[in-house]
């Protein structure tokens, strides 16, 4: 209907052209696309490492790669996926693009810093890639001392510098979001009218700002110890390797919430939009994000249960870890209650949302097993743990990311993705994921340790199942890559509000103009007020 108008109209994608207009852009929407491109690349790299791991594990003997190579593979898989894909994924792509629009702002508070943080991610990524090409790193993504500082003969320093730099990218993104939410809201956009995605991004930003510097200083200390040979954690001098673990997990446990909280925000948007209802218990869901951010800082010691951490501290950390279940459960129950008597439709983003709820619940509940001091000792460093965090990070965070990407794709590009293919790939991903990781729970419970490339023959069936699932999962991830690219040229033209959603981002054109809105919107409704959505839904096909 408005095809001609969309072609003619000036928007953020066609207001200027050329490489320079992208590499020097200060537009948060273009920077979001730069991030999208970058992290997709890193996802592919991390995927290659995962592929090698799964191929190796098809047979019980180590006949595909050597032990050294295998150590490097799981290390680099972890580093790339966590620091260069998952942590920037939703905040830096979807958050960057939509946080300002959702609160009715023209841009983030500090556009130049926003661009700088992308360059920092790229610079950090280059260090990491250099390290991988030069020979890789084999310490595990956790860099535990004293192995990383004194014994490993791999590229620890280059990788550490890469993560250090990427950390600053994360800090600056978080800082930018906090300031933007505080100072850039449109008239009438009160705190309790903000979409829940913005709340979750805000909570995430708090973790990024409070936690990441501690990782940075830990890396600096490891760097000093390895490079200048001064001992900070060196047991030979009386240093304490467990202190390293405290510092590392003070960041790295909350980092899990950097990955999952934004996904939860996306799910709140999806559930509300596709069931045509206000999110049940909006305030509780909003505050549960903050509660997760805060509680997330009080539980890091549950990663140290089998270290020399005092058993008494272990008890406290175990006890506190259970509390994270409360805000998480609030979210899951409120999403479910939102669905109740809703007018539910099953578009692709909603399929991802359903996938998220199921998989996150499994991941979360097995997290409770692991929070239990006694049980954890039994399954520490087994595939049970591997399965648990993949249910959270892949089943949770990546499902949320893909759901959000599909949901907002028409707004970002002005084109619809092909619904049929998208539904198919959502289904493939769900099945492939479960086939890959559910057997790992059983493997872990039976005693298969993580980070080994050989194993007793009786584990082979489960490992083969897992590897088969991984190849299904790979197909599921390849499909969106292909059809989303395809849709850029051939997708159906999207209207301003194809889903009949309520957020401010749907009240501007698709794709949005350079400054997001023709004139600053004035907000008079709470979020998810569907009586306020004017006009009928646009056909989706």
């Amino acid at each position: 209907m408005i095809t001609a108008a969309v072609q003619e109209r000036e928007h953020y994608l066609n207001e200027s052209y050329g490489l320079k207009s992208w590499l020097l852009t200060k537009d948060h929407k273009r920077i979001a696309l730069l991030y999208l491109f970058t992290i997709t690349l890193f996802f592919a790299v991390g995927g290659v490492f995962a592929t090698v791991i799964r191929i190796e594990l098809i047979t019980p003997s180590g006949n595909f790669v050597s032990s050294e190579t295998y150590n490097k593979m799981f290390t680099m898989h972890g580093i790339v996926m966590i620091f260069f894909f998952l942590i920037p994924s939703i905040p830096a792509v979807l958050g960057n693009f939509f946080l300002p629009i959702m609160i009715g702002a023209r841009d983030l508070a500090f556009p130049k810093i926003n661009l700088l943080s992308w360059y920092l991610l790229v610079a950090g990524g280059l260090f990491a890639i250099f390290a991988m090409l030069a020979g890789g790193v084999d310490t595990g993504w956790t860099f535990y001392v004293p192995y990383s500082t004194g014994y490993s003969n791999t590229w620890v320093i280059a990788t550490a510098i890469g993560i250090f730099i990427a950390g600053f990218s994360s800090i600056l993104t978080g800082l930018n979001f906090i300031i933007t939410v505080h100072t850039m809201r449109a008239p009438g956009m009160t705190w309790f009218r903000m979409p829940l995605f913005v709340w979750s991004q805000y909570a995430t930003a708090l973790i990024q700002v409070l936690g990441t510097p501690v990782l940075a200083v830990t890396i600096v200390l490891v760097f000093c110890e390895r490079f200048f040979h001064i001992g900070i954690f060196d047991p030979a001098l009386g240093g304490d390797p467990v202190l390293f673990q405290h510092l590392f997990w003070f960041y790295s446990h909350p980092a899990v919430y950097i990955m999952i909280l934004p996904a939860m925000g996306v799910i709140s948007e999806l559930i509300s939009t596709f069931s045509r209802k206000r999110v049940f218990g909006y305030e509780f869901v909003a505050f549960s994000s903050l509660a997760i951010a805060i509680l997330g800082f009080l539980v890091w010691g549950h990663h140290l249960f089998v270290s020399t951490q005092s058993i008494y501290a272990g008890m406290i950390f175990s006890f506190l870890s259970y509390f994270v279940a409360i805000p998480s459960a609030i979210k899951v129950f409120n999403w479910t209650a939102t669905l109740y008597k809703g007018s539910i439709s099953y578009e692709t983003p909603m399929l991802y949302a359903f996938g998220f709820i199921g998989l996150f619940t499994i991941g979360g509940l097995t997290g409770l097993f692991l929070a239990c001091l006694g049980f954890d000792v039994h399954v520490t460093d087994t595939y049970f743990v591997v399965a648990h965090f993949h249910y959270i990070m892949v089943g949770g965070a990546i499902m949320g990311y893909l759901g959000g990407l599909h949901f907002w794709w028409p707004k970002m590009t002005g084109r619809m993705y092909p619904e049929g293919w998208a539904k198919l790939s959502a289904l493939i991903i769900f099945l492939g994921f479960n086939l890959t990781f559910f057997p790992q729970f059983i493997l872990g419970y039976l005693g298969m340790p993580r980070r080994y490339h050989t194993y007793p023959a009786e584990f082979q069936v489960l490992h083969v199942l897992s590897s088969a699932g991984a190849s299904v999962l790979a197909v599921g991830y390849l499909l969106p890559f292909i059809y989303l690219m395809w849709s850029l040229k051939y997708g159906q033209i999207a209207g301003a509000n194809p889903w009949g959603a309520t957020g401010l981002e749907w009240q501007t054109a698709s794709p949005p103009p350079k400054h997001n809105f023709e004139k600053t919107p004035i907000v008079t409704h709470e979020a998810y007020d569907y009586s306020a959505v004017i006009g009928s839904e646009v056909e989706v096909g």
Partner: protein
Amino acid sequence: MTQHVDSVKTYAAVFIALIILTVVTTAVAFVDLGPFSVVAALLIACGKMLLVALFFMHVRHSTRLTRLVLVGAVLWLGILIAFTLSDVFSRGWLGVPGR
């Protein structure tokens, strides 16, 4: 834009107080206070920090939000240190090596 411009006199008074506290903390370090040496040193340092923050960094004229941010920062540093020390100090209680 509301700005508070403090008088030179205020700043000078704060500055002199800071110098005096520096002299005091150095002198006190040479006196045997037992375990209270650390307490005294940290109390004086906190006092100096408060003077710099409140006056030189204008926290006393700042918004509630800025103060919240500061309290939050101190609290989080407290969490990091207190929880880690809870481990370090209780490690020996069981009397079992490695526990």
